[in-house]
């Protein structure tokens, strides 16, 4: 009889079985003695002890196997937890170092352990660059161990260490260094002293930088420092000449979406980021909105062609200003004649563009703008990107304004992405600051047809050959482009100012060859240029031409002196009589 048998119906079967088993074990010794087999008593005891330890070690072993195989421990190659400063190097597309973690040393001084004050001072001042006697005296006059000097290189640390000075100790302090200084500073960004990315790639690529640290691989950015330097120098030249409030430069590969160079002025040095104001650190290419002005005419013309509303031979009457309710739309370069589509683009006719947009209609134009990414924030690794400001009511009035780049505010990055889409064969390729693998073929959504894309390349070339963008031409590189001069809203007068403008030039090169030809988009924008010349054609176009001239060789675009002569007549169109 067992305990469980006493109440067969009150407990579940498994409970009764367990109680029964315990009962048997408990009385095994008594049974062994009772049956006259005392050796069984010892055997059972040994068996029980063995069983206990077997179970115990089995559990420990099982736990160890689980931890090793399933807990995720060792995921980081044996590094259980990475310090915040653990970051991989940042390099450009050719492997040039852009950001690196370097170990520096902080020198600590403990006054209580210093035997000979004057000797220690003399030795430290002679071997420590930048150390002042006043700082030494200040630390020595205190009671606690304090930092005397920071940022010592390993060599300096070693030379001081060899002196064997009592009271002098060192501590490692990793630092993020940007060897190129201000070059591409807004794109590279910077991290705080504790390793947290604050801006640019340092913030947007934190995961990649951490993974790169673990795998000991640098994170490769899409930029090319040679092209970046050329862009920054020419942009600085334009700033020196026209004294704008700020300036932006951008070069992208329109087939891969890679940002080859990105500059924003005023500049800053990420090694001393805290010394600069927030305004100086602002990346105006990605975080500032502009009314781009006439560069938007490229979108209107492309949409007109793609929808079939317009053809190269379509004509628009620009003899008289266009009256729309309370407002009248004028042309900047008043031709006062009937213009073909190509001429509307080349003469940058507001009247012609507005009439074309009215023919396209609000719904179609807006759906194209949506597809071109002009109505939403660009999806990019950079954190500091701004959302566009679009018309609240998409009516005919807004339609006319938007058609020539007013009433809609976008970032230079959004403009570059949308322009790339028009010119790369018609597909939307998102921009990136990371280098794409060789032969990259992303999943791209078609926005305009290949025919439209070819036509836009021709039209933009025509604008440089005989339109407002002539000053952007570069010998043998078949540059195409569109000027833009957008007036800025002035809160002081609560109206648009005709003295504060945004002058830009959006270019593509080369414009000839098959659609698959490697092609690059270049944008230079000056915010409020001063002096007599304030239009994109005079302020930004020459700088774009120089940038293209200097960058083409680095980008692998051959300069062809014997290019087939450009058929400008095809762009001008043949209006029906």
């Amino acid at each position, binding site marked *: 009889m067992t305990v469980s048998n006493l109440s067969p119906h009150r407990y579940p079967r498994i409970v009764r079985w367990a109680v029964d088993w315990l009962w048997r074990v408990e009385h095994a010794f008594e049974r062994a003695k009772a049956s006259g087999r005392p050796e069984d008593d010892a055997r059972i005891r040994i068996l029980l002890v063995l069983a206990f330890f077997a179970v115990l070690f089995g559990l420990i072993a099982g736990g160890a196997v689980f931890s090793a195989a399933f807990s995720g421990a060792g995921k980081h190659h044996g590094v259980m937890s990475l310090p915040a400063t653990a970051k991989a190097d940042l390099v450009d597309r050719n492997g*040039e170092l852009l950001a690196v973690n370097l170990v520096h040393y902080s020198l600590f001084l403990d006054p209580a352990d210093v035997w000979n004050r004057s000797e220690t001072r003399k030795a430290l001042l002679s071997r420590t660059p930048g150390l002042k006697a006043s700082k030494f005296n200040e630390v020595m006059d205190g009671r606690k161990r304090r930092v005397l000097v920071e940022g010592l290189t390993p060599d300096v640390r070693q030379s001081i260490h060899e002196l064997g000075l009592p009271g002098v100790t060192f501590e490692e302090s990793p630092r993020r260094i940007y060897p190129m200084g201000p*070059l591409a500073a807004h794109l590279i960004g910077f991290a705080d002293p504790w390793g947290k990315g604050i801006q640019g790639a340092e913030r947007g690529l934190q995961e990649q930088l951490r993974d790169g640290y673990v795998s000991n691989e640098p994170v490769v950015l899409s930029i090319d420092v040679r092209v970046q330097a050329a862009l920054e120098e020419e942009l600085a030249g334009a700033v020196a000449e026209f004294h704008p409030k700020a300036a932006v430069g951008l070069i992208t590969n329109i087939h891969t979406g890679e940002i080859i160079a990105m500059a924003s002025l005023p500049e800053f040095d990420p090694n001393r980021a805290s010394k600069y104001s927030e305004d100086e650190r602002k990346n105006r290419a990605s975080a500032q909105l502009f009314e781009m002005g006439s560069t938007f005419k490229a979108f209107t013309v492309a949409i007109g062609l793609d929808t079939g509303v317009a053809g190269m031979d379509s004509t628009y009457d620009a003899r008289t200003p266009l009256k729309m309710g309370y407002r009248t739309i004028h042309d900047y370069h008043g031709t006062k004649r009937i213009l073909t589509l190509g001429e509307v683009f080349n003469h940058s006719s507001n009247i012609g563009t507005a009439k074309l947009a009215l023919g396209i209609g609000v719904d179609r134009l807006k759906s194209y703008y949506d597809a071109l990414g002009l109505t939403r924030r660009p999806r990019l690794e950079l954190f500091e990107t701004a959302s566009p400001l679009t018309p609240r009511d998409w009516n005919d009035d807004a339609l006319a304004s938007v058609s020539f780049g*007013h009433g809609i505010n976008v970032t230079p990055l959004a403009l570059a992405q949308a322009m790339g889409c028009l010119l790369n064969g018609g597909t939307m390729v998102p921009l990136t600051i990371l280098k794409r693998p060789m032969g990259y073929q992303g999943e791209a959504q078609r926005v305009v047809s290949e025919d439209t894309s070819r036509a836009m390349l021709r039209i933009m070339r025509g604008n440089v050959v005989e339109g407002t963008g002539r000053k952007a031409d570069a010998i043998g590189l078949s540059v195409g482009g569109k000027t833009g001069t957008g007036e800025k809203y002035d809160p002081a007068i609560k109206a648009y100012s005709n003295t504060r403008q945004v002058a830009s030039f959006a270019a593509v090169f080369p414009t000839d060859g098959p659609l698959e030809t490697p092609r690059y988009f270049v944008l230079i924008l000056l915010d409020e240029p001063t002096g007599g010349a304030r239009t994109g054609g005079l302020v930004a176009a020459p700088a774009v031409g120089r940038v293209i001239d200097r960058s083409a060789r680095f980008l692998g675009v051959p300069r062809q002196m014997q290019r087939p002569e450009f058929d400008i007549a095809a762009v001008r169109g043949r209006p029906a009589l």
Partner: protein
Amino acid sequence: MIAALFNHRTRGFRTINILAFAVLVVIALVVNLAKAYAGREVREIARTERKINEEGKRIRLLKAEVAHLEQPERLQRLAKTVLGMGPLSPMREGDINSLPAVAAGQTPTGPVPTPTPVSDTALEEVSAVPVVADLNDAPAVPGPSETGQ
């Protein structure tokens, strides 16, 4: 035979025990020596790893210095001031096939195509900006003037 081996005694001690003890001492000695040797090796490895680590840090520092010294703007300034070099004119660019022409003292590239004639009216930079007409009917916040160029 085996029983004799276990029963044989030397000076009152079982010989097998003496042999076992001797083997134990030898094994302990060997293990101790091996451990000491391994300890030396481990220290040597640690010292070498420390050295590699220090060298790695120095290399990184040197790489950063090289990158700093190779700043394109600095190289350009040095090339200009020290070597008297300047940007290459497009007319002097050429490829491998143009070398015979260069050797013969000719321009490395072909003639530049004649620019397409440009109409004088195509690019007039106008300073006076016509703005929105009929301002009396304009809203409180007027729209932009259509100055796109």
